């Protein structure tokens, strides 16, 4: 009763929601409406480089002329030219395969961290978080030092006598995969670690006591218990990787054209704002389901705490 009376005194507390709510509507929601609008426009040599533009001063007739000028022709363009479909598919392929690899190498790392002696765990945690905060760009750049033709990897392999001629690691699919897996590893390890830490060890002991082999315990007991962390980590990697720009741009070749690069080129090099917007709309439409799924996983984890 007392708690309620105290809470009632805060009648104006909804005011705290006003500022962040308005900010997000203005700088998150409205911009998307504009992307949608421009994706329905046509390229023009003008400033801004598209038609129609909404002329509010012309009132009702201006609005009618504006609505009449919108069309889906840009989307037709996306469907006709193979380059768009191919870069969407390439992005999906790279994101799916790298997420899979991230799960496979993230699981033992997170598991090992959770089993480390209690005192060292906070240190290991900071050690994993530190690169996650360190510049994305710099971490990708660091790989150029290693992977380039006269770089350290070729030097090391030659010194070991494994290769005679330097291998062109850079500008290849391999380099893009290495860069992505390297950059996103903390995103996979952290949610998994949080789940492994909560894991009730007595369940594993019970399985062992009942004669269950260790690999079977892992798949039948451990894996289902850390599934929420696995799902969160996989989505935290998969969704941004699809739209990745920096990594394929610096480490990849023209063969590894991902959709983020296509959007970037359409916008910056070709100055084709309607096509760039249409790419963004299609990309977002593809990501709506995984994003909704991610928010669902997220909210369930918070409430389950």
């Amino acid at each position, binding site marked *: 009763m007392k*708690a309620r009376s*105290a809470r009632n005194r805060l009648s*104006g507390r*909804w005011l*705290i*929601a006003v*500022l*962040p709510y308005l*900010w*997000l509507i203005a*700088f*998150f929601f*409205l*911009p998307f409406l*504009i992307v949608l609008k421009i994706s329905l426009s046509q390229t023009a040599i003008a400033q801004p480089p598209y038609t129609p533009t909404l002329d509010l001063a012309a009132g009702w007739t201006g609005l009618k002329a504006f609505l009449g000028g919108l069309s889906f022709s840009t989307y037709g363009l996306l469907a006709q030219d193979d380059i768009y479909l191919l870069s969407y598919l390439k992005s999906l392929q790279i994101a799916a395969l790298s997420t899979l690899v991230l799960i496979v*190498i993230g699981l*033992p*790392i997170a*598991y090992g961290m959770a*089993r*480390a*002696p*209690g005192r060292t765990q*906070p240190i290991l945690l*900071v*050690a*994993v*978080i*530190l690169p996650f*905060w360190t*510049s*994305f*760009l*710099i*971490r990708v*750049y*660091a790989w150029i*030092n290693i992977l380039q033709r*006269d770089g*350290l990897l070729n030097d090391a392999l030659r010194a070991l006598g494994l290769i005679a001629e330097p291998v062109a690691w850079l500008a290849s699919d391999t380099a893009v995969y290495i860069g992505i897996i*390297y950059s996103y590893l*903390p995103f996979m*390890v952290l949610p998994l670690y949080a789940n492994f830490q909560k894991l009730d*060890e007595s369940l594993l002991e019970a399985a062992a006591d009942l004669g269950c082999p260790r690999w079977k315990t892992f798949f039948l007991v451990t894996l289902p218990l850390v599934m929420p962390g696995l799902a969160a980590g996989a*989505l935290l990697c998969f*969704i*941004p990787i*699809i*739209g990745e*720009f*920096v990594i394929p741009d*610096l480490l990849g070749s023209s063969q590894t054209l991902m959709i*983020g690069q296509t959007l970037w080129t359409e*916008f*910056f090099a070709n100055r084709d704002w309607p096509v760039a917007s249409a790419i*963004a709309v299609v*990309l977002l439409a593809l*990501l709506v389901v995984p994003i909704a799924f*991610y*928010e669902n996983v997220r909210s369930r984890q918070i409430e389950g705490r």
Partner: protein
Amino acid sequence: MSVGRKFSSFNLISVALGIAFLYLPIVILVVYSFNASRLVTVWGGWSLRWYAALLEDSALQEAAANSLLIALASATAATVLGTLAALTLTRLGRFRGRLPFVAMLYAPLVMPEVITGLSLLLFFVAINLDRGFLTITIAHTTLTLCFVAVVVQSRLAGFDRTLEEAAMDLGCPPLRTFLTVTVPLIAPAIAAGFLLAFSLSLDDLVIASFTTGPGATTLPIRIYSDVRLGVKPEINAVCTIFVAVIALVVIAASILTRRAEQRQQVSAYY
């Protein structure tokens, strides 16, 4: 801590390999920033010449100053907005309009940056706002406020509401209760959120590239245009300084959060 836990050699090897994988490229970068030779593969002894070269590069220093200023401004705005958003989520219960709010707040966490960058730029063009310092700051605030909200929200979730109720039962007005009881208790999370927002803003390339304008080149934009031309020892030196600054920020943040946890444990004894 359960007794049954064993740290097997398999665990040790996987953690060691994982940490080595995460740190080796950065360590190599740092070491080679002190390389006297211009060639990446040739070790010419230790030298500070690339750091000295940075002192001559005034355009680079200007880019660094821009980045710091934008990071400071956007992190401050994001901390205020993110803290309010976290309070909204934890204190207002299931209010109408909560779902769209949560969706808008958390979507930037996973949203590909090219989409966020493009949409903000088109928005700034539509409202006729000149691109530059202000537009990057707004864009970074929007990007980072959700990170602040996540950090502060987790702190508020484990917050002892009876302290606030006690203050108000003793006649303390709500605003004053908030400022003298709530804020000091969640201050470490607010500070950690600020530092996270600061380092994210300092690091961002994609969104800044979309929303930048004449005279507002940030450090990542400058580094990116240099890197596209190939590896240069000067870039190794810039990156090393950059990594050192962010490492200091992260370590400060983790100490702050740790202290907050200890403080909460102490308050549990009362």
